[in-house]
């Protein structure tokens, strides 16, 4: 039964490591989406396990919010590309540590 849990956790970790290690902002966005979709899968699995519908409804919330969030992210990305001509996270060095 817990194979689904392991699968979801692996997918989530892949997403998390992608956010932390990839330097291309577009790939980082895709990794964030991977994290959220791993959670979606987990929600659906638990929903089926408990025979409870609310988990599946939550998935719709997550999908809608993720779409809104990534739209904002892409808009910010366009602004960065206009300034720097690159979407590499390492080129953002204007705020000193």
């Amino acid at each position, binding site marked *: 039964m817990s194979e689904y849990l392991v699968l979801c956790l692996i997918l989530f970790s892949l997403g998390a490591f992608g956010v932390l290690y990839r330097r291309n902002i577009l790939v980082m966005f895709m990794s964030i989406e991977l994290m*959220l979709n791993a959670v979606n899968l987990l929600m659906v*699995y638990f929903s089926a396990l408990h025979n409870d519908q*609310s988990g599946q409804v939550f998935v719709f919330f997550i999908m809608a919010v993720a779409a809104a*969030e990534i739209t904002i992210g892409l808009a*910010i990305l366009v602004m960065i590309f206009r300034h720097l001509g690159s979407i590499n996270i390492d080129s953002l060095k*204007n705020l000193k540590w």
Partner: protein
Amino acid sequence: MNAIILISILGIFTMMSEFIGLKKFIYPIILLSLVGILGYNICSFWNTPEVHYGMLLHDNYSVAFGSLLITITLLWFLLSRESYSAGEFNQGDHYALILFSTVGGLLLVSFTNMSTLFLGVEILSIPLYILAGSRKKDIRSVEASIKYFILGSFATGIMLLGIALIYGATGTFDLAAIKIAASQQSLFYVGITLLSISFAFKISAVPFHFWVPDVYGGAPTFITAFMSTFVKVAAFGAFYHLLDSIFTQVPSYLSYTLIGLSALTILIGNLAASYQNNVKRLLAFSGVSQAGYMLMVFPMLSVGSKSSLFVYLAGYAVANLIAIYVVHSIEKLKDEATVENFGGLAKSNPFLAFVMTLALISLAGIPPAAGFFGKFYLFTEVIKGGNIYLVLIAILGSLISVYYYFKTIIAMYSEPENTSSAVRYEFGFAKIILVIMSVLVVLIGLFPDILLQIGKQI
């Protein structure tokens, strides 16, 4: 719940005001509506607690924190007038985004279902990602925006995994049902830990604080003011509400983690702040250390800890708003608000210097101001909880903080007038608001009983 609906309508109306030709009147309309909603919200304080559709809880806690949040928004609108009337930003859209963010904050202090918590966090954050990058021509603002966005989304992902695991362990999203079903399952505890980590991101506790100086430093100064007061109050209110609803007593492993987090946050926040030369970044780090003081009461979950948290947050928010307003006035003349640029402010503009001194004294926790009382009450609660060592660390941290707060105050009063830094512009409206806020800071410090009585009933 009515306050949430009314502010949402106000936000949509503000957004549309640009093309229905009400642009000139929108500012007074927002102010009057917010005052009305605040009054309505305060009046509902003694109503009997009720749950709306299993999603939102209406009790004294949500009303008290909701009123505090609306008050902060109102003060923000009053102080930010000049920056927007100068045509620097697109007024209507900004105001609408701030109002939507307020709705998210109100959801966060009154949720009773995990889905409302998730939606609240997102409604609070998404407008702020836009606002942080609202100075489109300035690469620093855009950079702050993308950093805030990536870390915010990352924290949201962690929060969702936590919610999913708790759902897996208990089979429900409802907080009351979770409290009953809370089992010894490891899934449940992993879920709670992940939720706590995502909240640590939002309240900027130490291992997760690295985004704070960059984002607060790069965002437009008024947006920084909103983020460092409103978001912090909302996140603390939500985190406390979550722990309070799920547990009757915080499990020992979580309470040790929280104590460790707060000790680290106090020490590292204060040490990092004392190395800063830019006052905006200094205030960002001081905000980190203030979060550490407030985290101290989380393991107790008593009536006293709730009220001390409320009183401390109220004092912190008002003082921080004043301080950031003064930083903004300095930044108008100079590009950066370094400590040197504050030199001689007492001669060129005694009023601003006085107000800034009062705010910093309150943040440092020195007697006549609100911060002293807040800290005193907070530390008393922690000692009652039997945690002497944590209080010792907190007092050590406060001693360090006196150094960097007074660095700015001494620069303002003792250094010779930095002729180019003379702040002599006229400001009528904001001056009145600043006077009112300073009186508020002193009044809370002199007569703490008023807030304390409210705090005891939540």
